[in-house]
């Protein structure tokens, strides 16, 4: 998960400094506590109300650099240092496209090479070094890897879903635990009162030694609170197991099926990979002189492919049994 996404998910508060000032209206945080300072894509800041004023009517130039901006492009600053902010955003953008995982590579070395390439592009963008080239590389990579990018994006979405779900479950579990704990406390309290009451009654009505009666009741008290505790724990485990099961068999399965590698052209055979060399001179063939063949889809290209495939099929196949070939006199 990208830094930014997790930052937002974990609700890290936006960066605020006491000396923040809106460069437009000069409003100061010191005087205006709830002021929200936003950052545009050009990394120039403005407070929320200035952004509204300037961009509500549509795209307008940034007052500092005059780049045309839209309201939707402004976001809350998270990091104090804007260069860090910038880096995080560039990395986020790069990660959207270059999202291959180690499992996409046969060898670790290939994966490392890939990571190095990605870092190279990232650094170019970060240090404004030959950004055109970097943009070109990104675009070319995107075009060449559309399928895998999409697949990994949905994998990422799936991972995030799982994390979110795990997080929610954890929260839920904690909440339940809390409630359970409170309930147990209340139960124990009630039990204590009950026992106390019955103790009083027993003491009042029994002929037994008061000491023995108290001892017996105390044992009873311990037992009952222990049993409630273990019972609730069992129930909780069960609930979690059911939750996990349900989650596995539904969403994940379908997602998995939609993301599994899939090639509509799959075949048990090696594809025939023969490039026709040039236009062949085919003087012996009179068939194409009349126009009828082409109209029926019979083209020279098709005919020549048929012939060349015939010429190259099995051309380098060894005859059976090397020994016989190597020493013909052996037979």
């Amino acid at each position: 998960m990208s830094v930014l996404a997790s930052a937002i998910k974990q609700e890290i508060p936006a960066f605020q400094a006491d000396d923040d000032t809106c460069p437009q209206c000069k409003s100061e945080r010191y005087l205006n506590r709830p002021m929200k300072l936003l950052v545009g894509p050009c990394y120039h800041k403005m407070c929320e109300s200035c952004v509204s004023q300037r961009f509500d009517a549509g795209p307008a130039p940034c007052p500092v650099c005059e780049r045309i901006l839209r309201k939707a492009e402004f976001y809350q600053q998270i990091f104090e240092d804007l260069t860090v902010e910038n880096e995080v955003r560039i990395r986020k953008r790069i990660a959207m496209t270059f999202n291959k995982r180690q499992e996409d590579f046969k060898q670790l070395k290939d994966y490392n090479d890939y990571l190095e390439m990605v870092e190279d592009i990232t650094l170019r963008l970060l240090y404004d070094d030959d950004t055109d080239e970097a943009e070109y590389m990104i675009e070319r990579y995107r075009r060449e890897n559309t399928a895998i990018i999409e697949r990994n994006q949905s994998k990422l979405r799936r991972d995030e879903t799982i994390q979110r779900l795990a997080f929610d479950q954890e929260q839920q579990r904690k909440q339940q635990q809390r409630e359970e704990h409170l309930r147990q406390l209340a139960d124990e309290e009630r039990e204590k009162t009950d026992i106390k009451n019955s103790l009083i009654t027993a003491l009042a009505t029994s002929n037994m030694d008061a000491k023995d009666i108290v001892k017996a009741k105390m044992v009873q008290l311990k037992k009952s609170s222990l049993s409630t505790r273990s019972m609730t724990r069992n129930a909780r485990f069960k609930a979690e197991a059911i939750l996990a099961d349900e989650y596995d068999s539904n969403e994940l399965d379908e997602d998995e099926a939609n993301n599994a590698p899939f090639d509509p052209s799959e075949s048990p055979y090696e594809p025939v990979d023969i490039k026709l060399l040039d236009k062949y001179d085919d003087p012996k063939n009179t068939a194409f002189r009349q126009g009828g063949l082409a109209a029926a889809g019979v083209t020279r290209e098709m005919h020549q492919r048929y012939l060349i495939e015939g010429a190259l099929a099995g051309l380098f196949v060894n005859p059976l049994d090397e020994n016989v070939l190597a020493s013909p006199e052996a037979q």
Partner: protein
Amino acid sequence: MASKAILGEEINKETESLYKKEKKLGEGTYAVVYLGHHIKTNRKVAIKKIKLGNMRSGLDMSAIREVKALRELRHPNVIELIDVFSHKTSLNLVLEFLDTDLEIVIKDKSLVFMPADIKSWMMMALRGLDHCHKCWLLHRDLKPNNFLIAANGQLKLADFGLAREFGDVKRAMTSQTVTRWYRAPELLLGATNYTGSIDIWAMGCIFAELSLRAPYLPGASDLEQLTTIFRARGTPSEDEWPGMMKLPMGYSFEKFPKPQFSDLFRGSSEEAVDLMNKMLTFNPTNRISAADALKHPYFANLPRPTAPEKLPRPLKSLAGGEEGEGGGDEVVSVDDDVVASKKRLFQDAFDDGLEAERQKMGEQAAKRMDFSISSPA
């Protein structure tokens, strides 16, 4: 190794002894189909016994073509010819046993097709066809009932009685091939040499039929077939199909406008209609190939094709729904039970006419296993 049979006759006898015939599944003019099994492995097989009683010139061309083609093809979406043996003067093809066919599935109106189901069938069909074309083999009789369906849902191209090689432009071929409704326009115009694009046209018709649940271009006669096509697809201009008039039967046809295809195929995605149009392109040179069709976005994009085992399948199968160990009668009664129970379930949804039609379809399916054809070309 010394005990291994050398003589043709001995090998043939050995092959025959591997299989046991059980019961007749169907009979056509050309062949009888039996249910059988491989004795050692108990694998269920269909034994297609080709009759040669009336063949004055010995083995007839469709038997030769079928054996010749199937002996060379090994692909998950092409029916497997497991063995061949002769018995006295009959030729016996031991084929993998397949329960049903695509025509039965299309006609079974109790089945609902999802777009992903159609995509799955089309993908399997095109994979099988692409393999044939890569081997330079034309099927020449594609239609829904020549796509058989295995118990695990795999679709398999069958009936190679009209199959022949292509690629050699000097050899004339007959234009009297392919069942009329699926016959490509260049065949109807009398082309005597053609390519895999005639099979693609038929696939396009089947694609449309899967969406419409009815034949797309049902011409009433060979003569009317072209008119039916032009009415449905618009009469092609000379630009659209250069050289069309140079074909043996090319002449000026009545001009029909091109209709809006998406109106008819409202249930289909834009990509599906686009691929269908590419398969039903008039000019065979521009018609998409099986290999390229599989690369079309229709297949790559969601929804993914349904897994074969999850595809809708009819209640009735060729050999009876249950494992029929005993005699034929017993199997039939099991079948009736299944039908009856289903009938109880949907008492009102079925009327007797529909039921009768379903029964008939079962019989037809049995005959289909014999892949009988009208006449050898």
